[in-house]
Structure formats: structure tokens, C-alpha cells
């Protein structure tokens, strides 16, 4: 096993052990943390973030970042909410198809501007973050979609299902996670995404269409943010143009980065991302248990991002130094 490979394993193992320690400490301090209710809360909070994290992970692996996903989520949630007001009978499958398509288009727009005009993706998506959020207000007229606008079969999607009453969104997000894993780990395209992020010049020399690969990642990232919009409507039972999805991109990015996906591209795994998101979810539920005010959540997430970035950079620096690439 190479140094880097080891490091990745250590990273995944590391987060896993942090999770274990965290859970034990929380459980010792307050046994209420180990109740079914709090774990249910963890696993209900996760799917939304997890689904978005899969797309964001792909984008980061190919050396970009998409910070517009919160607005994409809100737009798709508003669109589907407005449709429910008109057509309360809209089936879940059709809703999925609609939200996914809405997100896909928005993601592709991001990808198009990034690849065509060669501007850093963070700046482009900072623009579309506002652009899409503005569209949310324009389309909705600023009006909130209320609980009674959302049909019962959509709400129950996040509460129960035919399978042991496990919430539908949990099952569905598990499927997306597994599909992403298969795509990234085992498909030709998935490996080309890693190759593109690892060394774009070499990828081009080997005949990989770097533009297409990048567009694909942005497209999927948008699509999954769109699907998350449906999850949001189902789980929270309302969509508010000014609240829904605001700031969620930073939670997603925090989870992806702490999960071992390198911001310099080329590395990252679905398992790591899952563990990263799980850790954030547990922290979220455990904070009140540990008597830490919920207000600290964002600061903790921010700290996690900065520490993970610094750690990654230190490791890259050390490894380059080991291989004689730079002079200290």
C-alpha cells in the first residue's frame, strides 16, 4: 500500500473513530443520546445533505467547487411546491423527475460558464447562487409554500415506507449513494473523473474529454441538489424562499472535505464523504445533548473546513518534500 493510499484509509478510519469517540462521550454524558429518537433524528437529517454531498464530491474531485447548490435546492423545491398547489395528485416519481431535471439544467449552466469562459467555479457559482435565489423569489412571488399545500403522499415519503417503515428518503438516498459509489469506483467515466482531477494535462494527453467530464460533474451536482429540493419539501413540509437551503452549501462542503476529498482534486471516496456527513449529522444532534448551544454549530463546521484544508495542505507539502519535489 502506498503512502497516499494508507493516508486515505487512515482518514476514513480516523473519521470513523472520531464518530465512535464522540458517540461514546455523548452517551456517557447523557444517556438520552443513545435513544432511538435521537438516532432517528440523525438519520432523518442526513439524507438531504448526503445526496447533495455526492454531487459536490464529484465536482471537488474534478478540481472545482459549486457553492450555488443551496439556491438550486430552493428553486427546485419552490417549483415542485407550486406544481403541488396546481396538481396535488402529482406522483412521487414524476416529482423526482421534475426536480432532477430542474437541478440538472441549473448545474449544466454553472458547468457551461466555468468551462467555456475559464473563470474559477467559486466566482461563477457565487453569481449563480444569487441569480438562482432571485429566481426563487420571482417564481414564488415571495410566497411560502405551506404545509397544507404539500400532498400527504409527499410528506409521508420522509416518514415511512413499505420497507419496515424506514423513511422513503432514507432508502432513496441510500440508493443514490450506492449508485454514486458504483459510478465513481467502477465505471469508466468515474475513473476518468478521478483522472481529470488528478492530472488534467495527462488526462487530455490520454484522450479524455476534460470539458465533457467537468460538465457531467456540474450537471449531476445540480441534479442531486434538485432532488434534495423534493426531499426538503417532503421533510419540512414547507418551502420558504428566504430560508430554504440558505447556507446549506457550506455544510455540504464541510462534510465532503472532512470526508477526505482533496480540494486539489483527484481523490475522495463515497465512504469518506458518507462518514463526513454522518459526523456532521451526529454533531448536530449531539450539541443540545452535550449542553452546547445550537448556535455553535456553524462555527464548528467552519472550523472543521479550515482545519481540514490546512491539514490537507500540510500533508501535500510533506509528501512533496519527501519525494524531493520542493525545497523547504
Amino acid at each position, binding site marked *: 500500500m502506498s503512502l497516499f493510499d494508507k493516508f486515505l484509509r487512515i482518514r476514513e478510519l480516523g473519521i470513523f473513530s472520531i464518530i465512535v469517540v464522540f458517540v461514546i462521550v455523548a452517551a456517557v454524558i447523557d444517556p438520552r443520546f443513545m435513544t432511538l429518537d435521537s438516532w432517528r433524528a440523525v438519520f432523518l437529517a442526513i439524507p438531504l445533505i448526503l445526496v447533495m454531498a455526492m454531487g459536490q464530491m464529484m465536482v471537488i474531485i474534478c478540481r472545482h*467547487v459549486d*457553492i450555488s447548490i443551496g439556491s438550486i435546492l430552493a428553486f427546485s423545491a419552490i417549483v415542485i411546491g407550486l406544481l403541488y398547489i396546481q396538481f396535488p395528485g402529482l406522483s412521487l416519481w414524476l416529482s423526482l423527475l421534475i426536480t432532477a431535471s430542474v437541478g440538472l439544467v441549473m448545474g449544466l449552466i454553472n458547468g457551461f*460558464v466555468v468551462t467555456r*469562459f*475559464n*473563470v*474559477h467555479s*467559486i*466566482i*461563477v457559482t*457565487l*453569481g*449563480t*447562487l*444569487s*441569480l*438562482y*435565489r*432571485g*429566481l*426563487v*423569489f*420571482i417564481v414564488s412571488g*415571495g410566497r411560502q409554500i405551506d404545509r397544507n399545500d404539500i400532498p400527504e403522499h409527499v410528506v409521508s415519503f420522509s416518514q415511512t415506507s413499505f420497507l419496515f417503515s424506514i423513511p422513503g428518503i432514507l432508502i432513496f438516498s441510500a440508493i443514490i449513494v450506492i449508485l454514486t459509489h458504483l459510478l465513481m469506483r467502477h465505471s469508466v467515466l468515474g475513473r476518468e473523473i478521478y483522472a481529470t482531477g488528478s492530472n488534467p494535462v495527462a488526462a487530455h494527453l490520454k484522450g479524455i474529454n476534460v470539458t465533457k467530464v467537468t460538465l457531467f460533474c456540474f450537471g449531476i451536482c445540480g441534479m442531486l441538489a434538485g432532488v434534495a429540493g423534493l426531499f426538503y419539501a417532503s421533510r419540512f413540509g414547507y418551502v420558504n*424562499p*428566504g430560508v430554504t437551503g*440558505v447556507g446549506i452549501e*457550506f455544510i455540504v*462542503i*464541510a462534510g465532503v472535505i472532512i470526508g477526505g476529498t482533496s*480540494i486539489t482534486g483527484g481523490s475522495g471516496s463515497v465512504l469518506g464523504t458518507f462518514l463526513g456527513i454522518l459526523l456532521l449529522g451526529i454533531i448536530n444532534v449531539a450539541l443540545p445533548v452535550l449542553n452546547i*448551544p445550537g*448556535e*455553535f*454549530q*456553524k*462555527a*464548528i*463546521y*467552519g*472550523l472543521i*473546513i*479550515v482545519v481540514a*484544508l*490546512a491539514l490537507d*495542505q*500540510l500533508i501535500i*507539502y510533506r509528501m512533496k518534500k519527501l519525494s524531493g519535489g520542493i525545497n523547504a
Partner: protein
Amino acid sequence: MLNKFSLYLSENPTLRYWIVRPEWVAVILLIISIISSIQLSPFFADLAFIMDSATPYVEYGLIAIILTLIIISGEIDLSIASMIALTAVIFGTAYNAGLGMPASMFIALFSGTICGLFNGILVTKLQIPSIILTIGTLTLYRGIAQSLASDFSLGGYPSWFIGIDYRYIGIIPIPVIIFTVFAIVVGFFLSSTIYGKQLYLIGTNPQTAKYSGIKVNRIKLLLFTLSGLVCGIAGVLTTSRLAVARFNMATGAELEIVLMVMLGGTYIFGGRGNIFGTFIAFWIVVILRAGLNVARIKIESQLTILGAMLIIAIILTNYIYSKSQK
């Protein structure tokens, strides 16, 4: 005809230097927005109205001027809006803890400086790309603000402190004067001093700059620190204007601040741009926002226009610079 003109320009570098510049786009946009807003409402013919409309954006304008320097030197700081909120909250907390006004102000500016220094150290020492790092500290600083203030509005300031936007010299509100003076001072610094010139050189080619003996890292560190300090000033000004400090102040302001810099024709990849452009772009944003308000377009819906403008401004500026290089 156009070819002949561009040939003529390439033979006259001085002329081209003055003609092919993206800030002319900003000037033209400003003229268009003034004319069309006067059509929209006679208010806009009244200078006092425009001045009053400008006060809420002065804090952003101040930061946009420092951000112009940072982008010219090839970096970016996206944690600015969070630093406004954090320093405002620290100011409010300190004052409510009974520290008194001068001490609270000092603490606010000092904490802003520390935040900026932290960004700068991570960028120059650890070589983390600033665009990614400041996305991280954006979350961190806002989070600390939230941890400190929770959902409370920190108020209770003496009346002399509140409402700086309602103090005037003539018809000009004091914040607008502060902004204008600051723009002139920094603009002069950038265009006429050796340090300003070195910022352009660093942004054009950091390697050559290093080999020419320019202290690239120290200058960048200084810029990030300065950015934090100015955000601290903006935090106190915002608190004076709103009479309270909240953790969610200036949410999303990085968009408007980056927009002011980009609209002003500063090159996103560094090395080019100036304060004049940013100054003009500030007024475009002011008039645009005021116009949209008069036209009763919801504040939130205006985001669409601002977002689209940011992307178009970048594409246009890149295009103009790619032409002027030939």
C-alpha cells in the same frame, strides 16, 4: 474599419492604454442607469436622493476598495461579509459588557485585523488558495458571530453613536464622505506610489515579482490584514446605521462587494484594474438598487439581476483584456 482602428491602436500604446479599458464600460453603464432611472422617477434627478440611497452601501464600498487591491495582486477574500458581522457582534458584545465606546471600537477593529491576519497567514504560509480558504473562514467567522450573539440583537448604544447615516455635511451624508475620501486616498496610493505599482506586478507575475526582489508574501499578508481591519470599520459603521448588531448582518454581501470590483473592470486573474472603476461601479450598484426599489421589485428578486451582472461583468472584462493584449 475596426481592423484599421485596432491596428492604429496597436501602434499607439499610449492611446490604447487610455481607450481599451474595461472601466469605460462601467462609466457607460453608470450613464445609462442614471438616464433610465430619471425616466423611471424624477427622484433620481435629485442628488440628495441618490446620496441618501448610497448610505447603506458605503460599508460594502469601503471593502470593495480594499478587495480591488487584493484581486489586483492575484488573490481574493470572500470572508468579508462574515467579518463585518463578526466584528459588529464583537463590538456589541464588548459594549454591552460595559467596556465603553472607545474600548469596544478598538476591540472590534482589532478582532477584524486578527481575522484578516489569520486569512493572510494561511494563504501565504500554508499556500492554501485564497479563494478556497476564505470560503472556509466565511463559514467560520459567521459561525463565531452566531455563537457569540445567538439570535439576539445587540443594541443599547448611546444616541450620539446611532445613525451615522443621518449626519450630513451639506447634503452629503457622512458615510458617503468617508467612502469618497477613502477611495481617493487608496486610488492615489494605488496609482501613484511604488507600493501600488508593486501590487500590479505581483498580480501580473508573482514569480517575476519574487525574482525582482518584491516581498510578495509580506505584501499579501498585509493586504489580507488590511481587509480585516476595514471590515472591522464597516462592522462598526453598520452597527451605527442599524442601531443593533446581529450575527446575520450583511449575509450574502460578498456578492455585492465582488460585483462592485468586477463591474469596475478589475481583472479576476489579477494584475489589472483600478479604484476609479470600483468607485464608479459602487454608484452603478447604488442607482440600480434604488431604481429597482422604486420600481417595486422585491429586494430578493433583485438578486437575480446582481448575480447575472456579476457573471456578465467577468466575461466582458476578460474579453476586453484579451483584446487589449493583442
